[in-house]
């Protein structure tokens, strides 16, 4: 019954993480960067569930972690989008490359 091995889950999570990282590092639109972060977070959640299924005795520890993670991700999106709006109002742009006030 249990035919899909752990490695597949991890591969899928790694791919998702790489896609998310790519989006964060390369895309210019700040909203898409935010979406990339969401994807990276979900790949981490996927890892939690996979390890929970294969190694946890009660098999629920990872799922509870994941629930917390989803909650935090929702909050993070709310804060992140609020920041994006604030930055947009300030800088009149959504291009990540344009926002470089941290420059020394």
């Amino acid at each position, binding site marked *: 019954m249990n035919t899909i091995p752990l490695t597949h889950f991890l591969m899928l999570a790694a791919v998702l993480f790489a896609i998310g*990282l790519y989006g*964060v*590092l390369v895309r210019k639109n700040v909203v898409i*960067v935010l979406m990339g972060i969401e994807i990276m977070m979900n790949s981490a959640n996927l890892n939690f569930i996979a390890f929970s299924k294969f190694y946890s005795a009660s098999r629920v520890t990872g799922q509870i972690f994941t629930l917390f993670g989803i909650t935090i991700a929702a909050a993070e999106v709310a804060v992140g989008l609020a920041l994006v709006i604030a930055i947009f109002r300030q800088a009149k742009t959504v291009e*990540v*490359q344009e*926002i*470089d*006030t*941290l*420059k*020394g």
Partner: protein
Amino acid sequence: MEYLFERCWLIPLFPLVAAGIIAFFKNDRRKGATLLAFFAMALSLILSCLLFFFYLTYPKAHEVNRTLINFSWFTSGHTPEVIGFIIDPLTLMMLLVVTIVSFLVFVYSLGYMHDDSRFVRFFCFLSLFSASMLGLVISNSLLILFMCWELVGLCSYLLIGFWYEKPEAAAAAKKAFIVTRVGDIGFFIGLLLLYHKTGTLLLYGETLPGILSPEVLNSLKTNAITFPFFGGLLLTTIAGALLFFGAMGKSAQFPLHVWLPDAMEGPTPVSALIHAATMVAAGVFLVGRMFPLLEGSGAMPFIAWTGGFTALFAATIAVAQFDIKRVLAYSTISQLGTMMMALGLGGYVAGNFHLMTHAFFKALLFLGSGSVIHGCQGEQHMMKMGGLRKEMPVTFWTYLIGTLALAGIFPLSGFWSKDAILLEAFRQNRSLYWIGTTTAFLTAFYMFRQIFLVFMGEFRGHGKPHESPPTMLWPLRILAILSIFIGLVGMPFLFHNPFHYFLTLEHDVSSPSYFVMLVSSGAAILGILTATLLYGMRPISKEDPLAPVLKGVFRILEKKYYMDEFYEKTFVRLTTSLAHFFKEVDRVLIDGFLQRTGFATLALSQFNQWIDNFFINNGFDKACAGIRGGGGKLSRIQTGRAQDYLFYAAVGAVVLYLLFRAL
């Protein structure tokens, strides 16, 4: 009465304060300066007189003839340096003499210095001098005495050189200062010797012993130092002789007498006060003060013979001088020599008695000569005077009284004091007695020569001489009265010499010698007759009538035995050549060395500067520039874009992963 005695230090303090205040006065505040100087001097005079009368009426004065006010000045290590003041008969006598003569000279100076532009300064110096002299006589410590001794020397210097625009006056001031300093070296060594041997410079002690305390004197009289040629000499002899060197300088004894005649370049009131009555008597006073130490020591014959020789030596020079003040200056040297002779023969009373009487009549003579000079518009050469008795009657009569007193004519003061000295010599040492009598003859001769040249005959100068103002005549009158009567206090016929009792608290038990009185009077009258024969009979022409009589000797006397020339050729030349030699040493060796050192330092510093510039500064600058450039380059990676930072983090993570893989 004790209250007053314990405040005797006020006497020198008044003129000192006056001098200090006048020093800040401007040149045109004549009235303020004179008022202040007079007020201070009058206070000192009154206080001195009060002290004197209290002393005389004090019932216990016959037991304690000495009041001491000793106190510790400072403590060096564990030894307190005790100084103090003393009131004893000798001090009282000197206090009276100094304050009276000072006061009269102050009055006289009002007239004499009236036209001088440095009038205020004159009174400042004069007050300072009086203060120092009064401090000298009341000090109970050789330390204070020495300080005041140097202070009066300084005042003498300042006042001789008062008209410093005259090169002679400036030179005379320097000469006086340096020649007396030669004697002071001896004085100072004596001081050190006494301090080394006794541990104190106090004269009389109350609780601590002083130098003149009996036990200290005994130890000094029994200890000796052995010298290569002289053999063993007692400490009293050595210390006494050394202290006497100081007295020789100050009191112008041979061979240190050369400064006093030149000191006549100063204003005449100064000559009267400092170089006749008070400061030059300080040497005699010192010998009198240290008399308990000197008494019976080997220094006494030395003192007596120095004094006797100086007396005769200076009297012979005075015979052939033409400057009215120089005659008096040599006369002063001669009389000081007589005093020294008396003290050296053990005649403590006789020496001090003559010191007192001489102060009055010699001050009178100097002030009289000043009046003559004033009346003759500054002329001092006696050949250009003559006949002044008509124009200047008061000056003439007072001068005559002074001359008679100095010549020792009965019953003026000089007679009694000179008689006391000659009597002492007659009893102790016949050779010195005849020297003294010859001096008396010469004294009478040169003084009457002066009278004839200045006051008798016809006027030989230019212009019209005039009598001096009353401020100058009144001091003359008062001093004339004093010169007549002051000698009576030391009369042997009156209560066995009251002055003797005053000074020693013992009655003079010896009987007066009529032989000595007659011989000295005879010598004086012979001197007067000789002078009358030579100068009083014929009108005086260009030449001195004495010159053809003495021929070449007169020239030698006029040139003062060529002493100045001798000193000029020997000591002065030696000193100047030494000075030149050392100047060359200075220039070549010291300066050369310094110059080279300076040059080397300069070169070294230039080298250092180069190193600094090249290595230190350059290197530092380079390092700074490098750091700045590196910082600039590194700052490029701080772009401010969040994506770049995240990229670095990602790359870092990958690198870390690869690193851990490799391990």
